[in-house]
């Protein structure tokens, strides 16, 4: 018996490994364990795990342009390059004391990390993770996104500014600063076409909009005063913004301090609708194709996901995926939605047409779900 096992092992070692693509793969953060789970969306299974990634209490991931490597930005300033196919750490650096996220450049050669402490961004070679340059800001950096032209755009929480860093020459980044964009930007994103950067404001009702074709025109305010002067409700978790909020001509945005999703018209930048929802929205994510938008919520409504029909501009489905739903992500063509439930230690997979639960994968306190289709998206 023992001989047989040894023989099998030797044979397995000699065989060429099965070749495979990464188009149906993804990475799920296991928040408390400092580990990621590698998943495959065709058979809806976990295919591996990679540990040793540090403090992932707030983590985000961008992908290399070949969608083989995941760059994991951890809260503790760790930046780890994970080989998804080999399920191992390729490189890892501790690049700051306290980080919030990052982005990868249009040409895929640069990875930028956004930091709280010390405030600023650091630009790395995506192949080697060698530090190429840094741009100190003196303020917490939020909402970093990539924009065409190997530019990184981000907002400064305390300073109320939007900075555009042109990293075409990575050792000598050029910085364009747009000042007085509004009070306390908490996150920001680039529209999927790469043209506009939008920052959500915590300190006032409204968002700041920059036309990246014309940064010299500065920022303009959109959806100003959406709270209508009413006292805001408490926000127990900050909403998150990204280009996934765009569905056709509309952008679906969490209101801050209101149990509403705001709908911004991308043609004339006016309010197209506001949709009452169950609680404070955290993520509002459009299904690829833009037919529906799925929304999750802050405490105490964080066991719910609601689905908005874009045609009807109202909630058409209430789901209860589990306790503490932290994130959701669609497969590239939108037939499945993957939803993480931190306190039920599970990732639930839904059929987006029937809302049937197709699978439930065990995971330890899962938070962010990142599928490799992000590799080809502008703004990430």
């Amino acid at each position: 018996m023992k001989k047989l096992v040894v023989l099998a092992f030797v044979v397995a070692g000699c065989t060429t490994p099965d070749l495979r693509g990464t188009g149906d793969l993804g990475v799920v953060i296991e928040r408390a364990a400092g580990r990621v789970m590698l998943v495959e969306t065709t058979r809806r299974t976990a295919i591996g795990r990679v540990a040793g990634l540090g403090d992932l209490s707030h983590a985000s991931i961008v992908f290399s342009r070949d969608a083989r490597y995941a760059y994991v930005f951890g809260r503790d300033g760790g930046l780890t390059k994970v080989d998804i196919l080999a399920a191992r750490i390729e490189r890892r650096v501790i690049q700051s004391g306290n980080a919030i996220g990052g982005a990868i450049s249009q040409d895929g050669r640069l990875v930028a990390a956004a930091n709280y402490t010390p405030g600023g961004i650091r630009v790395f070679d995506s192949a080697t993770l060698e530090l190429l340059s840094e741009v100190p800001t003196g303020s917490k950096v939020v909402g970093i996104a990539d924009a065409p032209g190997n530019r990184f755009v981000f907002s400064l929480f305390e300073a109320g500014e939007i900075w555009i860093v042109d990293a075409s020459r990575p050792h000598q980044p050029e910085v364009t600063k747009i000042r007085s964009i509004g009070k306390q930007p908490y996150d920001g994103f680039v529209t999927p076409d790469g043209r506009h950067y939008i920052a959500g404001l915590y300190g006032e009702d409204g968002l700041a909009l920059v036309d990246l074709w014309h940064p010299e025109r500065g920022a303009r305010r959109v959806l100003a005063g959406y709270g209508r002067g009413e006292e805001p409700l408490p926000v127990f978790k900050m909403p998150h913004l990204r280009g996934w909020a765009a569905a056709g001509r509309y952008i679906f945005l969490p209101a801050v301090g209101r149990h509403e999703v705001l709908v911004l018209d991308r043609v004339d930048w006016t309010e197209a609708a506001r949709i009452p929802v169950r609680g404070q929205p955290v993520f509002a994510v459009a299904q690829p194709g833009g037919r529906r938008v799925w929304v999750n919520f802050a405490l105490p409504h964080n066991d719910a996901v609601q689905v908005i029909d874009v045609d009807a501009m109202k909630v058409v489905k209430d789901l209860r995926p589990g306790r503490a739903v932290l994130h959701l992500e669609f497969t590239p063509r939108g037939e499945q939605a993957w939803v993480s439930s931190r306190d039920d230690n599970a990732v639930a997979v839904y059929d987006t047409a029937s809302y049937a639960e197709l699978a439930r994968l065990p995971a330890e306190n899962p938070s962010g779900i990142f599928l490799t289709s992000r590799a080809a998206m502008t703004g990430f």
Partner: protein
Amino acid sequence: MHRLAGCIAFLACLPAFAAEPAPERRAQLVELVRQDCGSCHGLTLKGGLGPSLEPAAMAEKDAAQLEFVILHGRRGTPMPPWRSFLTEEEARWIVEALKRGLPK
């Protein structure tokens, strides 16, 4: 006047011993602090959008004031009021736990 303030502060501390949350509830509170406060202050409480909640950062801060901030939030910042989730005794226990170092 100073003595009076001292007396009041002393009296305010007394119920902490009288009404410590039950062990099960304490475990829930630790989980709440790590997971939900951790969204902004970091799972390891080293800080994020919100400041560090580690013992060194908490040491010189006034306990009553911290308790007030937990229950009522801090205007002009993203710190929300947690009074719909916590009693005064629980907020007080959290402050003491943070000053000592939150149990694992």
